[in-house]
Protein backbone atom coordinates (compact mmCIF):
# COMPACT_ATOMS: atom_id res chain seq x y z
CA UNK A 1 0.00 0.00 0.00
CA UNK A 2 1.42 3.33 -1.00
CA UNK A 3 2.06 6.15 1.39
CA UNK A 4 0.56 9.52 0.59
CA UNK A 5 1.87 12.74 1.99
CA UNK A 6 -1.23 14.75 2.88
CA UNK A 7 -0.25 18.40 2.61
CA UNK A 8 -2.10 19.04 5.87
CA UNK A 9 -1.40 15.93 7.97
CA UNK A 10 1.78 14.37 6.64
CA UNK A 11 2.42 10.83 5.46
CA UNK A 12 -0.42 8.37 5.83
CA UNK A 13 -1.35 5.08 4.26
CA UNK A 14 -3.37 5.24 1.10
CA UNK A 15 -6.30 3.51 2.76
CA UNK A 16 -6.97 6.70 4.74
CA UNK A 17 -7.64 8.51 1.47
CA UNK A 18 -10.18 8.40 -1.30
CA UNK A 19 -9.15 8.96 -4.86
CA UNK A 20 -11.16 11.56 -6.73
CA UNK A 21 -10.09 10.76 -10.28
CA UNK A 22 -8.63 13.15 -12.76
CA UNK A 23 -7.70 16.60 -11.49
CA UNK A 24 -8.24 19.94 -13.17
CA UNK A 25 -11.57 18.96 -14.72
CA UNK A 26 -13.64 22.08 -14.38
CA UNK A 27 -17.39 21.87 -14.08
CA UNK A 28 -18.97 23.66 -17.03
CA UNK A 29 -20.10 27.16 -16.14
CA UNK A 30 -23.29 26.94 -18.14
CA UNK A 31 -24.39 23.30 -18.42
CA UNK A 32 -27.54 24.21 -20.29
CA UNK A 33 -25.56 25.48 -23.21
CA UNK A 34 -23.89 22.11 -23.77
CA UNK A 35 -25.06 19.38 -26.10
CA UNK A 36 -25.92 15.96 -24.65
CA UNK A 37 -22.62 14.72 -25.96
CA UNK A 38 -20.58 17.53 -24.44
CA UNK A 39 -22.33 17.15 -21.12
CA UNK A 40 -21.82 13.37 -21.24
CA UNK A 41 -18.12 13.99 -21.74
CA UNK A 42 -17.99 16.05 -18.58
CA UNK A 43 -19.99 13.59 -16.48
CA UNK A 44 -18.54 10.26 -17.61
CA UNK A 45 -15.26 10.72 -19.43
CA UNK A 46 -11.93 11.11 -17.66
CA UNK A 47 -8.38 10.63 -18.86
CA UNK A 48 -6.84 7.32 -18.01
CA UNK A 49 -3.19 7.55 -18.97
CA UNK A 50 -0.60 4.90 -18.39
CA UNK A 51 2.15 7.10 -17.02
CA UNK A 52 1.88 10.59 -15.63
CA UNK A 53 -1.55 11.31 -14.23
CA UNK A 54 -2.86 14.41 -12.51
CA UNK A 55 -5.34 13.25 -9.95
CA UNK A 56 -7.29 14.30 -6.91
CA UNK A 57 -7.26 12.77 -3.45
CA UNK A 58 -9.17 13.51 -0.29
CA UNK A 59 -8.00 12.60 3.18
CA UNK A 60 -11.25 10.91 4.10
CA UNK A 61 -10.19 9.45 7.43
CA UNK A 62 -8.03 12.40 8.42
CA UNK A 63 -8.46 16.11 7.79
CA UNK A 64 -11.02 15.56 4.99
CA UNK A 65 -9.23 17.99 2.74
CA UNK A 66 -8.82 17.62 -1.00
CA UNK A 67 -5.52 18.01 -2.77
CA UNK A 68 -3.89 17.08 -6.05
CA UNK A 69 -1.15 14.65 -6.90
CA UNK A 70 0.91 13.73 -9.92
CA UNK A 71 1.42 10.01 -10.04
CA UNK A 72 2.99 7.63 -12.50
CA UNK A 73 0.26 5.04 -12.93
CA UNK A 74 2.70 2.58 -14.46
CA UNK A 75 4.68 2.36 -11.22
CA UNK A 76 2.36 3.97 -8.66
CA UNK A 77 5.11 6.42 -7.79
CA UNK A 78 3.82 9.74 -6.53
CA UNK A 79 5.86 12.44 -8.19
CA UNK A 80 4.33 15.50 -6.62
CA UNK A 81 1.62 16.52 -4.23
CA UNK A 82 0.19 20.01 -4.31
CA UNK A 83 -2.67 21.97 -2.85
CA UNK A 84 -5.75 22.84 -4.84
CA UNK A 85 -4.71 26.45 -4.79
CA UNK A 86 -1.28 25.67 -6.22
CA UNK A 87 -0.40 25.95 -9.87
CA UNK A 88 -0.68 22.81 -11.94
CA UNK A 89 2.89 21.61 -12.38
CA UNK A 90 4.19 21.22 -15.92
CA UNK A 91 4.54 17.70 -17.21
CA UNK A 92 8.12 18.51 -18.14
CA UNK A 93 8.93 18.61 -14.43
CA UNK A 94 8.68 14.85 -14.30
CA UNK A 95 10.90 12.28 -15.86
CA UNK A 96 9.55 8.85 -16.52
CA UNK A 97 10.64 6.57 -13.79
CA UNK A 98 12.13 3.11 -13.76
CA UNK A 99 9.98 0.29 -15.04
CA UNK A 100 10.44 -3.06 -13.47
CA UNK A 101 9.76 -6.72 -14.15
CA UNK A 102 7.50 -7.44 -11.24
CA UNK A 103 4.75 -5.09 -12.24
CA UNK A 104 3.10 -4.76 -15.60
CA UNK A 105 5.98 -3.71 -17.79
CA UNK A 106 5.83 -1.71 -20.99
CA UNK A 107 6.05 -4.82 -23.11
CA UNK A 108 5.01 -8.26 -21.94
CA UNK A 109 6.77 -9.52 -18.89
CA UNK A 110 10.27 -9.87 -20.20
CA UNK A 111 9.54 -13.35 -21.42
CA UNK A 112 10.38 -12.96 -25.04
CA UNK A 113 11.63 -16.43 -25.82
CA UNK A 114 10.52 -17.46 -29.24
CA UNK A 115 10.97 -20.98 -30.39
CA UNK A 116 13.41 -21.33 -33.24
Amino acid at each position, binding site marked *: *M*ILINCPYCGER*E*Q*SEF*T*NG*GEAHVVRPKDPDSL*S*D*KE*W*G*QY*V*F*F*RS*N*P*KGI*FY*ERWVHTHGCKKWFNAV*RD*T*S*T*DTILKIYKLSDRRPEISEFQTTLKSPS*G*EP*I*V*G*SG*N*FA*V*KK
Partner: protein
Amino acid sequence: MWESPDPKKGYDVIIVGGGGHGLGTAYYLAKEHGFKNIAVIEKGWLGGGNTGRNTTIIRSNYLWNESAHLYDHSVKLWENLSEDLNFNMMFSQRGVMNLAHNEHDIKEMKRRISANRLNGLDTKWLDAKEIKELVPIMNTENLRYPVLGAAFQPRGGVARHDAVAWGYALRSNEMGVDIIQNCEVKSIKTDNYKVEGVETSKGLIKASKVAIVASGHTSVLAQTAGVRLPLQSRPLQALVSEPIKPVINTVVMSNAVHAYVSQSDKGELVIGAGTDGYNSFTQRGGYDVIEETVRAIVELYPIFGKMKMLRQWGGIVDICPDASPIISKCEVKGLYFNCGWGTGGFKATPGSANVFAHTIAKDEPHKINEAFNLERFSDGRLIDEHGAAAVAH
Protein backbone atom coordinates in the same frame (compact mmCIF):
# COMPACT_ATOMS: atom_id res chain seq x y z
CA MET B 1 0.15 -25.94 -31.13
CA TRP B 2 0.01 -22.44 -32.48
CA GLU B 3 2.56 -20.78 -34.70
CA SER B 4 4.36 -17.58 -33.87
CA PRO B 5 4.72 -15.92 -37.27
CA ASP B 6 6.14 -12.55 -38.13
CA PRO B 7 3.38 -10.12 -38.98
CA LYS B 8 2.33 -9.70 -42.62
CA LYS B 9 2.14 -6.25 -44.19
CA GLY B 10 -1.59 -6.11 -43.80
CA TYR B 11 -4.72 -7.94 -42.76
CA ASP B 12 -8.44 -7.67 -43.30
CA VAL B 13 -8.97 -7.47 -39.58
CA ILE B 14 -6.50 -6.78 -36.82
CA ILE B 15 -7.49 -7.64 -33.31
CA VAL B 16 -5.43 -5.92 -30.66
CA GLY B 17 -5.23 -7.96 -27.47
CA GLY B 18 -4.63 -11.67 -27.13
CA GLY B 19 -6.92 -12.29 -24.21
CA GLY B 20 -9.98 -14.53 -24.29
CA HIS B 21 -12.15 -11.87 -25.86
CA GLY B 22 -9.67 -11.05 -28.61
CA LEU B 23 -8.82 -14.64 -29.49
CA GLY B 24 -12.49 -15.58 -29.34
CA THR B 25 -13.35 -12.75 -31.67
CA ALA B 26 -10.79 -14.02 -34.17
CA TYR B 27 -12.21 -17.50 -33.86
CA TYR B 28 -15.80 -16.48 -34.58
CA LEU B 29 -14.74 -14.11 -37.36
CA ALA B 30 -13.01 -17.00 -39.08
CA LYS B 31 -15.57 -19.63 -38.26
CA GLU B 32 -18.87 -17.83 -38.62
CA HIS B 33 -18.07 -14.96 -40.94
CA GLY B 34 -15.54 -16.57 -43.26
CA PHE B 35 -12.72 -14.09 -42.69
CA LYS B 36 -9.41 -15.55 -43.82
CA ASN B 37 -6.93 -12.83 -43.19
CA ILE B 38 -6.95 -11.99 -39.51
CA ALA B 39 -4.21 -11.17 -37.00
CA VAL B 40 -4.37 -11.10 -33.25
CA ILE B 41 -1.64 -8.88 -31.86
CA GLU B 42 -0.56 -9.35 -28.29
CA LYS B 43 2.08 -7.29 -26.56
CA GLY B 44 3.06 -9.98 -24.07
CA TRP B 45 1.98 -13.59 -24.01
CA LEU B 46 -1.42 -14.95 -24.93
CA GLY B 47 -3.83 -14.89 -22.06
CA GLY B 48 -1.42 -12.95 -19.87
CA GLY B 49 -3.90 -10.16 -19.24
CA ASN B 50 -7.00 -10.47 -17.13
CA THR B 51 -7.89 -13.73 -18.84
CA GLY B 52 -4.92 -15.31 -17.07
CA ARG B 53 -5.51 -13.70 -13.70
CA ASN B 54 -9.21 -13.82 -12.97
CA THR B 55 -11.23 -15.85 -10.51
CA THR B 56 -13.19 -17.46 -13.38
CA ILE B 57 -16.70 -16.99 -12.05
CA ILE B 58 -19.33 -17.55 -14.70
CA ARG B 59 -22.99 -16.61 -14.32
CA SER B 60 -25.64 -14.67 -16.16
CA ASN B 61 -27.99 -13.50 -13.44
CA TYR B 62 -27.75 -9.79 -14.18
CA LEU B 63 -30.61 -7.41 -13.49
CA TRP B 64 -31.33 -5.62 -16.72
CA ASN B 65 -32.62 -7.43 -19.78
CA GLU B 66 -29.79 -6.27 -22.00
CA SER B 67 -27.19 -7.73 -19.65
CA ALA B 68 -29.10 -10.90 -18.92
CA HIS B 69 -29.37 -11.62 -22.63
CA LEU B 70 -25.72 -10.90 -23.31
CA TYR B 71 -24.37 -12.95 -20.42
CA ASP B 72 -26.73 -15.81 -20.96
CA HIS B 73 -25.81 -15.98 -24.61
CA SER B 74 -22.34 -16.53 -23.21
CA VAL B 75 -23.30 -19.19 -20.69
CA LYS B 76 -25.02 -21.12 -23.45
CA LEU B 77 -21.84 -21.03 -25.52
CA TRP B 78 -19.80 -22.08 -22.49
CA GLU B 79 -21.96 -25.15 -22.18
CA ASN B 80 -20.61 -26.44 -25.50
CA LEU B 81 -17.26 -24.78 -25.67
CA SER B 82 -15.09 -27.79 -24.79
CA GLU B 83 -16.64 -29.75 -27.60
CA ASP B 84 -16.62 -26.83 -29.99
CA LEU B 85 -12.91 -26.25 -29.46
CA ASN B 86 -11.97 -29.84 -28.70
CA PHE B 87 -10.12 -28.53 -25.66
CA ASN B 88 -11.31 -29.12 -22.14
CA MET B 89 -12.41 -25.79 -20.65
CA MET B 90 -13.13 -27.62 -17.42
CA PHE B 91 -16.38 -25.67 -17.31
CA SER B 92 -17.84 -26.71 -14.03
CA GLN B 93 -21.48 -25.75 -13.43
CA ARG B 94 -21.34 -26.02 -9.69
CA GLY B 95 -23.59 -23.02 -9.12
CA VAL B 96 -22.93 -19.46 -8.02
CA MET B 97 -24.32 -18.04 -4.82
CA ASN B 98 -24.70 -14.34 -3.92
CA LEU B 99 -25.16 -13.84 -0.21
CA ALA B 100 -27.61 -11.38 1.32
CA HIS B 101 -26.58 -9.85 4.64
CA ASN B 102 -29.24 -7.23 5.24
CA GLU B 103 -32.79 -6.31 4.33
CA HIS B 104 -31.62 -4.19 1.46
CA ASP B 105 -29.65 -7.08 -0.04
CA ILE B 106 -32.67 -9.32 0.25
CA LYS B 107 -34.92 -6.87 -1.54
CA GLU B 108 -32.39 -6.30 -4.29
CA MET B 109 -31.80 -10.00 -4.82
CA LYS B 110 -35.44 -10.97 -4.86
CA ARG B 111 -36.00 -8.34 -7.50
CA ARG B 112 -33.13 -9.71 -9.53
CA ILE B 113 -34.33 -13.28 -9.18
CA SER B 114 -37.76 -12.28 -10.43
CA ALA B 115 -36.30 -10.38 -13.38
CA ASN B 116 -34.02 -13.31 -14.16
CA ARG B 117 -36.91 -15.72 -14.14
CA LEU B 118 -38.83 -13.62 -16.64
CA ASN B 119 -35.72 -13.62 -18.78
CA GLY B 120 -35.61 -17.38 -18.71
CA LEU B 121 -32.69 -17.70 -16.29
CA ASP B 122 -32.37 -20.21 -13.51
CA THR B 123 -31.65 -17.99 -10.49
CA LYS B 124 -33.40 -18.94 -7.29
CA TRP B 125 -33.61 -17.83 -3.69
CA LEU B 126 -31.99 -19.85 -0.93
CA ASP B 127 -32.70 -19.31 2.72
CA ALA B 128 -30.00 -19.58 5.36
CA LYS B 129 -30.75 -23.25 5.98
CA GLU B 130 -30.44 -24.18 2.34
CA ILE B 131 -27.18 -22.26 2.15
CA LYS B 132 -25.82 -24.15 5.11
CA GLU B 133 -26.71 -27.42 3.42
CA LEU B 134 -24.79 -26.48 0.29
CA VAL B 135 -21.86 -24.95 2.16
CA PRO B 136 -21.72 -26.47 5.64
CA ILE B 137 -18.49 -24.71 6.55
CA MET B 138 -20.07 -21.28 6.21
CA ASN B 139 -20.62 -19.23 9.33
CA THR B 140 -24.13 -17.92 8.78
CA GLU B 141 -25.19 -16.70 12.20
CA ASN B 142 -22.29 -15.90 14.37
CA LEU B 143 -20.97 -12.93 12.46
CA ARG B 144 -21.27 -9.18 12.24
CA TYR B 145 -23.61 -9.26 9.25
CA PRO B 146 -25.43 -12.58 9.40
CA VAL B 147 -26.18 -14.51 6.24
CA LEU B 148 -29.90 -14.08 5.62
CA GLY B 149 -30.22 -15.80 2.29
CA ALA B 150 -28.76 -15.93 -1.18
CA ALA B 151 -29.48 -15.73 -4.86
CA PHE B 152 -28.28 -18.93 -6.46
CA GLN B 153 -27.75 -19.72 -10.11
CA PRO B 154 -27.15 -23.44 -10.57
CA ARG B 155 -25.96 -23.08 -14.17
CA GLY B 156 -23.22 -20.72 -13.04
CA GLY B 157 -19.80 -21.97 -12.12
CA VAL B 158 -16.16 -21.74 -13.03
CA ALA B 159 -13.90 -22.67 -15.91
CA ARG B 160 -10.17 -22.98 -16.42
CA HIS B 161 -9.03 -19.50 -17.40
CA ASP B 162 -5.91 -20.43 -19.38
CA ALA B 163 -7.74 -23.09 -21.37
CA VAL B 164 -10.00 -20.44 -22.83
CA ALA B 165 -7.14 -18.47 -24.31
CA TRP B 166 -5.30 -21.57 -25.47
CA GLY B 167 -8.35 -23.28 -26.91
CA TYR B 168 -9.39 -20.26 -28.97
CA ALA B 169 -5.78 -19.67 -30.03
CA LEU B 170 -5.29 -23.25 -31.20
CA ARG B 171 -8.48 -23.42 -33.19
CA SER B 172 -8.32 -19.98 -34.73
CA ASN B 173 -4.72 -20.61 -35.64
CA GLU B 174 -5.84 -23.77 -37.41
CA MET B 175 -8.23 -21.63 -39.44
CA GLY B 176 -5.40 -19.39 -40.51
CA VAL B 177 -5.47 -16.61 -37.94
CA ASP B 178 -2.03 -15.14 -37.32
CA ILE B 179 -1.26 -14.93 -33.65
CA ILE B 180 1.52 -12.48 -33.03
CA GLN B 181 2.93 -12.31 -29.54
CA ASN B 182 5.44 -9.92 -28.02
CA CYS B 183 4.28 -7.24 -30.37
CA GLU B 184 2.95 -4.08 -28.79
CA VAL B 185 0.54 -1.86 -30.63
CA LYS B 186 1.83 1.65 -30.05
CA SER B 187 -0.85 3.56 -31.88
CA ILE B 188 -3.79 3.24 -34.18
CA LYS B 189 -3.32 4.83 -37.56
CA THR B 190 -6.28 6.72 -38.92
CA ASP B 191 -6.91 9.06 -41.78
CA ASN B 192 -9.88 11.37 -41.79
CA TYR B 193 -11.87 9.26 -39.35
CA LYS B 194 -11.02 6.03 -41.13
CA VAL B 195 -8.78 3.29 -39.78
CA GLU B 196 -5.66 2.41 -41.74
CA GLY B 197 -3.78 0.04 -39.49
CA VAL B 198 -1.67 -0.11 -36.37
CA GLU B 199 1.81 1.02 -35.55
CA THR B 200 3.55 -1.71 -33.54
CA SER B 201 6.87 -2.55 -32.01
CA LYS B 202 7.34 -4.70 -35.11
CA GLY B 203 6.40 -1.93 -37.53
CA LEU B 204 3.29 -0.74 -39.30
CA ILE B 205 0.61 -3.33 -40.01
CA LYS B 206 -2.26 -2.32 -42.23
CA ALA B 207 -5.91 -3.16 -41.94
CA SER B 208 -9.21 -1.52 -42.76
CA LYS B 209 -10.81 -2.98 -39.67
CA VAL B 210 -9.14 -2.79 -36.28
CA ALA B 211 -10.74 -4.18 -33.15
CA ILE B 212 -9.40 -3.15 -29.76
CA VAL B 213 -9.86 -5.77 -27.05
CA ALA B 214 -7.08 -4.76 -24.70
CA SER B 215 -9.00 -4.57 -21.41
CA GLY B 216 -7.09 -2.18 -19.09
CA HIS B 217 -5.13 -0.69 -21.95
CA THR B 218 -8.04 -0.07 -24.29
CA SER B 219 -8.53 3.58 -23.47
CA VAL B 220 -4.80 4.21 -23.77
CA LEU B 221 -4.94 2.83 -27.32
CA ALA B 222 -8.19 4.61 -28.15
CA GLN B 223 -6.54 7.89 -27.27
CA THR B 224 -4.03 7.36 -30.09
CA ALA B 225 -6.93 7.34 -32.55
CA GLY B 226 -8.39 10.44 -30.95
CA VAL B 227 -11.24 8.48 -29.38
CA ARG B 228 -12.11 9.04 -25.75
CA LEU B 229 -13.63 6.19 -23.80
CA PRO B 230 -15.32 6.43 -20.42
CA LEU B 231 -12.94 3.94 -18.83
CA GLN B 232 -10.73 3.96 -15.77
CA SER B 233 -8.09 1.29 -15.27
CA ARG B 234 -8.03 -0.06 -11.76
CA PRO B 235 -6.13 -2.84 -10.01
CA LEU B 236 -8.21 -5.85 -9.14
CA GLN B 237 -6.55 -8.41 -6.91
CA ALA B 238 -6.99 -12.08 -6.30
CA LEU B 239 -5.24 -14.74 -4.27
CA VAL B 240 -5.03 -18.46 -3.85
CA SER B 241 -4.56 -20.57 -0.77
CA GLU B 242 -2.54 -23.70 -0.44
CA PRO B 243 -4.34 -26.74 -1.84
CA ILE B 244 -6.59 -28.68 0.50
CA LYS B 245 -9.04 -31.51 0.10
CA PRO B 246 -12.43 -30.36 -1.24
CA VAL B 247 -14.44 -28.31 1.26
CA ILE B 248 -16.53 -25.95 -0.79
CA ASN B 249 -18.52 -27.23 -3.66
CA THR B 250 -19.95 -24.13 -5.18
CA VAL B 251 -18.99 -20.52 -5.82
CA VAL B 252 -19.88 -18.08 -3.06
CA MET B 253 -19.84 -14.33 -3.44
CA SER B 254 -20.78 -11.67 -0.98
CA ASN B 255 -21.01 -7.94 -1.26
CA ALA B 256 -21.47 -6.75 2.31
CA VAL B 257 -18.78 -9.10 3.62
CA HIS B 258 -16.80 -8.51 0.53
CA ALA B 259 -15.06 -11.56 -0.87
CA TYR B 260 -15.75 -14.40 -3.20
CA VAL B 261 -14.38 -17.87 -3.17
CA SER B 262 -14.38 -21.13 -5.05
CA GLN B 263 -12.17 -24.16 -4.87
CA SER B 264 -10.23 -25.14 -7.94
CA ASP B 265 -9.95 -28.65 -9.26
CA LYS B 266 -6.43 -28.73 -7.86
CA GLY B 267 -7.66 -27.91 -4.39
CA GLU B 268 -6.60 -24.33 -3.76
CA LEU B 269 -9.17 -21.76 -2.74
CA VAL B 270 -9.43 -19.08 -5.39
CA ILE B 271 -10.38 -15.85 -3.68
CA GLY B 272 -11.23 -12.52 -5.23
CA ALA B 273 -10.93 -9.07 -3.74
CA GLY B 274 -12.46 -5.71 -4.53
CA THR B 275 -10.90 -3.15 -6.83
CA ASP B 276 -8.37 -0.73 -5.47
CA GLY B 277 -9.61 2.82 -5.37
CA TYR B 278 -7.20 4.43 -7.82
CA ASN B 279 -6.02 4.07 -11.39
CA SER B 280 -3.00 1.91 -11.87
CA PHE B 281 -1.26 -0.19 -14.47
CA THR B 282 1.06 -2.02 -12.09
CA GLN B 283 -0.87 -5.31 -11.87
CA ARG B 284 -0.30 -5.02 -8.16
CA GLY B 285 -2.70 -3.08 -5.92
CA GLY B 286 -2.50 -2.35 -2.21
CA TYR B 287 -2.01 -4.78 0.64
CA ASP B 288 -4.97 -3.23 2.48
CA VAL B 289 -7.31 -4.73 -0.11
CA ILE B 290 -5.88 -8.17 0.54
CA GLU B 291 -6.41 -7.65 4.25
CA GLU B 292 -10.00 -6.57 3.67
CA THR B 293 -10.65 -9.65 1.59
CA VAL B 294 -9.08 -12.10 3.97
CA ARG B 295 -10.97 -10.54 6.89
CA ALA B 296 -14.17 -11.25 5.05
CA ILE B 297 -13.12 -14.79 4.21
CA VAL B 298 -12.21 -15.58 7.80
CA GLU B 299 -15.47 -14.01 8.94
CA LEU B 300 -17.58 -16.17 6.67
CA TYR B 301 -15.46 -19.32 6.96
CA PRO B 302 -13.65 -19.28 10.32
CA ILE B 303 -11.90 -22.57 9.56
CA PHE B 304 -10.06 -20.93 6.70
CA GLY B 305 -8.21 -19.03 9.40
CA LYS B 306 -5.98 -22.09 9.61
CA MET B 307 -5.19 -21.92 5.93
CA LYS B 308 -2.54 -19.90 4.22
CA MET B 309 -2.29 -17.55 1.31
CA LEU B 310 -0.03 -19.03 -1.30
CA ARG B 311 0.07 -16.29 -3.88
CA GLN B 312 -1.52 -12.96 -4.50
CA TRP B 313 -1.65 -10.95 -7.73
CA GLY B 314 -3.44 -8.18 -9.54
CA GLY B 315 -4.91 -7.43 -12.92
CA ILE B 316 -5.80 -4.17 -14.64
CA VAL B 317 -9.52 -3.90 -15.15
CA ASP B 318 -11.25 -1.27 -17.25
CA ILE B 319 -14.17 0.12 -15.32
CA CYS B 320 -17.13 1.73 -17.06
CA PRO B 321 -19.33 4.27 -15.25
CA ASP B 322 -22.40 2.02 -15.41
CA ALA B 323 -20.55 -1.25 -14.71
CA SER B 324 -21.54 -2.56 -18.13
CA PRO B 325 -19.28 -3.18 -21.10
CA ILE B 326 -18.91 -1.34 -24.38
CA ILE B 327 -19.16 -3.46 -27.54
CA SER B 328 -19.39 -0.83 -30.14
CA LYS B 329 -18.34 0.98 -33.27
CA CYS B 330 -17.18 4.54 -32.90
CA GLU B 331 -16.85 7.71 -34.93
CA VAL B 332 -13.74 6.35 -36.65
CA LYS B 333 -14.76 4.04 -39.46
CA GLY B 334 -13.42 0.53 -39.15
CA LEU B 335 -12.49 0.93 -35.49
CA TYR B 336 -14.31 -1.27 -33.00
CA PHE B 337 -14.15 -1.59 -29.25
CA ASN B 338 -14.91 -4.43 -26.90
CA CYS B 339 -14.03 -3.19 -23.44
CA GLY B 340 -15.26 -1.92 -20.11
CA TRP B 341 -15.72 -5.44 -18.75
CA GLY B 342 -14.28 -4.28 -15.51
CA THR B 343 -14.30 -6.93 -12.87
CA GLY B 344 -16.58 -9.36 -14.63
CA GLY B 345 -15.84 -10.06 -18.27
CA PHE B 346 -14.41 -13.56 -18.13
CA LYS B 347 -17.87 -15.08 -18.00
CA ALA B 348 -18.79 -13.16 -21.12
CA THR B 349 -15.83 -14.34 -23.18
CA PRO B 350 -17.56 -16.59 -25.73
CA GLY B 351 -20.72 -14.53 -25.89
CA SER B 352 -19.03 -11.19 -26.26
CA ALA B 353 -16.51 -12.52 -28.77
CA ASN B 354 -19.36 -13.99 -30.76
CA VAL B 355 -21.42 -10.81 -31.04
CA PHE B 356 -18.35 -8.65 -31.45
CA ALA B 357 -17.29 -10.75 -34.44
CA HIS B 358 -20.72 -10.07 -35.87
CA THR B 359 -20.36 -6.34 -35.25
CA ILE B 360 -17.00 -6.26 -37.00
CA ALA B 361 -18.06 -8.44 -39.91
CA LYS B 362 -21.32 -6.62 -40.60
CA ASP B 363 -20.22 -3.19 -39.41
CA GLU B 364 -23.35 -3.08 -37.28
CA PRO B 365 -24.17 -4.46 -33.87
CA HIS B 366 -25.76 -7.80 -33.23
CA LYS B 367 -29.16 -7.48 -31.57
CA ILE B 368 -27.60 -8.66 -28.32
CA ASN B 369 -24.95 -5.95 -28.10
CA GLU B 370 -26.95 -3.09 -29.57
CA ALA B 371 -27.50 -1.46 -26.21
CA PHE B 372 -23.84 -1.64 -25.26
CA ASN B 373 -22.92 1.29 -27.44
CA LEU B 374 -20.98 4.45 -26.75
CA GLU B 375 -23.90 6.79 -27.32
CA ARG B 376 -25.43 5.78 -24.05
CA PHE B 377 -23.04 8.07 -22.23
CA SER B 378 -24.55 11.00 -24.10
CA ASP B 379 -28.23 10.16 -24.23
CA GLY B 380 -28.33 8.68 -20.73
CA ARG B 381 -29.53 5.20 -21.66
CA LEU B 382 -27.09 3.57 -19.25
CA ILE B 383 -27.26 -0.06 -18.23
CA ASP B 384 -26.50 0.46 -14.59
CA GLU B 385 -25.51 -2.86 -13.07
CA HIS B 386 -23.97 -1.34 -9.93
CA GLY B 387 -26.78 -1.99 -7.56
CA ALA B 388 -27.80 -5.30 -8.95
CA ALA B 389 -24.50 -6.77 -9.91
CA ALA B 390 -23.44 -6.46 -6.28
CA VAL B 391 -19.97 -7.93 -6.46
CA ALA B 392 -19.52 -7.58 -10.16
CA HIS B 393 -17.89 -10.87 -11.01
